């Protein structure tokens, strides 16, 4: 199956590590030009260098999503560099944490307003060309308890609602919006890698809850995101795809 991503222009926010990096890599391999960002300058530099090996145009600059003006400037720069945008995948996250009110504002600024500002920046261009695909990335922790009542879980949940309603609202503009909720994903330098080292019992308990006895990889999630972002998924709009190896207990009717 040809995904039809060849020559598409994609903006990826949070592309230096983990799922974001894997998405960037998948899209580059499929022939997309990319504008990527993350907070770490070294991380972006390394990501751009690595992504260029697939032969498409790849640009990147670091930005802190929490700094709204810088972030808007980056988004304008990315649109300018790519000459438009066909695919937007904003997945930077402030991560988990409990015990300080600050975790709420962090999650709001990064996990919610990160995607919101990116979507608002690209919608005019996508609407004008009457095509575009946006994939928001939530989490299985939005639907099932994980790690306590964390702002991260609740804030990510809002993306599922907002994403569906964006899809309804912008269908007329030829813009599709879908949501992917990954289950626990393990990669070097990721949270689950650290949990494996620092809280081994908890990690093993998670593995026992996984039907396949392992956690996911960034690539397994990235392929699903890439599919939803591609013209091959033309009839997917407002979908919420749980990608968790069967981890969650509930049935997704």
């Amino acid at each position, binding site marked *: 199956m040809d995904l039809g991503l060849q020559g598409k222009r994609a903006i990826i926010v949070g592309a230096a590590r983990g799922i974001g990096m894997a998405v960037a890599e998948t899209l580059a391999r499929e022939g997309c030009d990319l504008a990527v960002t993350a907070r770490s300058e070294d991380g972006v530099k390394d990501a751009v260098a690595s992504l260029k090996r697939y032969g498409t145009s790849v640009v990147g600059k670091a930005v*802190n999503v929490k700094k709204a003006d810088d972030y808007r400037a980056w988004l304008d720069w990315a649109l300018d560099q790519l000459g438009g945008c066909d695919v937007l995948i904003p997945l930077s996250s402030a991560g988990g*944490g409990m015990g*300080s009110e*600050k975790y709420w504002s962090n999650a709001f600024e990064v996990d919610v307003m990160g995607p919101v500002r990116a979507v608002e920046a690209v919608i005019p261009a996508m609407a004008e060309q009457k095509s575009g695909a946006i994939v928001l990335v939530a989490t299985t922790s939005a639907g099932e308890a994980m790690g306590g009542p964390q702002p991260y879980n609740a804030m990510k949940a809002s993306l599922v609602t907002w994403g569906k309603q964006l899809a309804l609202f912008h269908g007329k503009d030829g813009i599709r919006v879908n949501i992917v909720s990954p289950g626990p994903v393990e990669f*070097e*330098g*990721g949270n689950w890698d*650290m949990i494996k080292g620092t*809280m081994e019992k908890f990690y093993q308990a998670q593995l026992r809850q996984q039907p396949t006895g392992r956690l996911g990889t960034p690539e397994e999630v990235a392929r699903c995101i890439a599919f939803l972002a591609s013209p091959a998924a033309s009839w997917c709009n407002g979908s919420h795809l749980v990608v968790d190896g069967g981890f969650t207990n509930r049935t997704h009717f």
Partner: protein
Amino acid sequence: MDVKRHIDVIRVNPQDWPDGTPAWKAETPELGHEVIPAGRYTSHDFMKLEWERIWTKVWLLGGRSDDLGEPGDYICTEIGKESVLIVRQHDGSVRAFPNVCLHRGNKLRPEGRGNVQNFRCMYHHWTYGLDGRIERIPDLDTFPQGGPPGMRMKLYPCEEWGGFVWFSLNPDVEPLSDYLDPMQQHIAPYHAERMAWVRDITVEWDCNWKTSVDAFNETYHVQGIHPQLQWYLDDVNVQIDCYGRHNRYLIPFATVSPRVALPSAIPPAIHEIMVKAGMDPADYEGRVSDIRRDVQLFKREHGPAQGKDYSELNDDQLTDDYHYMIFPNVSLNVHSDDIMMFRQRPHATDPDKMYYDIWMFELVPQGQPWPERPKHKRFKHGDRSIGQVLDQDAFNLPTVQKGMYSDAFPGLWIGDQELRIRHFHKVIDDHVYPHGKRPGDL
């Protein structure tokens, strides 16, 4: 080394801190690459040599000065077959003498602490003053030979330094200050006397005392038995320094080991360091690799307002583990806000057993009440948890000790990361074989 990343650790410039703990890297001694014979850990003959030439010759850590607050306060501590009373005198000084009644050999007091007017033997009521003088022998007139010579206990050398009290079984021992040199300049800036007991535990471990000392003298084992600490400290960029008979290493804390990938989330143990320092990790905007330096700067700025005087400590000391070994048996992790130390004592007769004393102290901020001293607890190897990290340390020791008996195991195959183990055994040699090692010596 098996690392995933290269890290340039920010360290203080030793010249900037001339009066504090020396941060200089000492010249690495040339100690060879020989196997350290396993027999040193199992031989009764070697154990006897250690007794004659180390334990009865050097200065030994007896206890904490703050346990001897009032005249008559005493600490009764044991080393090998000897039991020693360390007693606060009416004039404020300390004295140490054998905990044995000169009449029939009974112990005057059980191991532990207390306060007395005098020491009265529970057998025939011979009574000794705080200074070790015999105050009363019931029916003295029935001893035609009179009382024991001088009518007193012999005194052991006993001195205080740095909030601790030290004694020696050797009447001719050098002054304590000469013996400890240069540890005083290293450790004094931490002001152990401003810290209060938080933990006082003795565990009877199933291994030789040196097996335990070795266990804390290298960081190579972190990747083996403490995987979780790789998200807490840098076990690769460790500075090792050997000084005469003592040694140390400096381990960067509040950082992530180059053996693992750098996470973007703050590791739980580093999170705790930040909270303890008064920072809000949720508010932290820097990278995980910046945390160590930022904790240092934060503590430097906010320490005084928290009643914590860090003025004599360099910046590294505000986060890192300066880990000392005072020969022969004291391992100290000194930190700006706490000290975790171990005293490792040989069993009186069995080379396969030892006593592992865990002493922990925490800085009492100025203006805060001095906390109540925890009671001493005592148990056997593995009976109770002593905390995740120390349980991990303890886990292998009995099997290490058993392996020392194997004909297939000539001895310890020591690498550079374990230089302090080699140095420790070299200092043992200096004591046990003062005229040099001969072929066949362990």
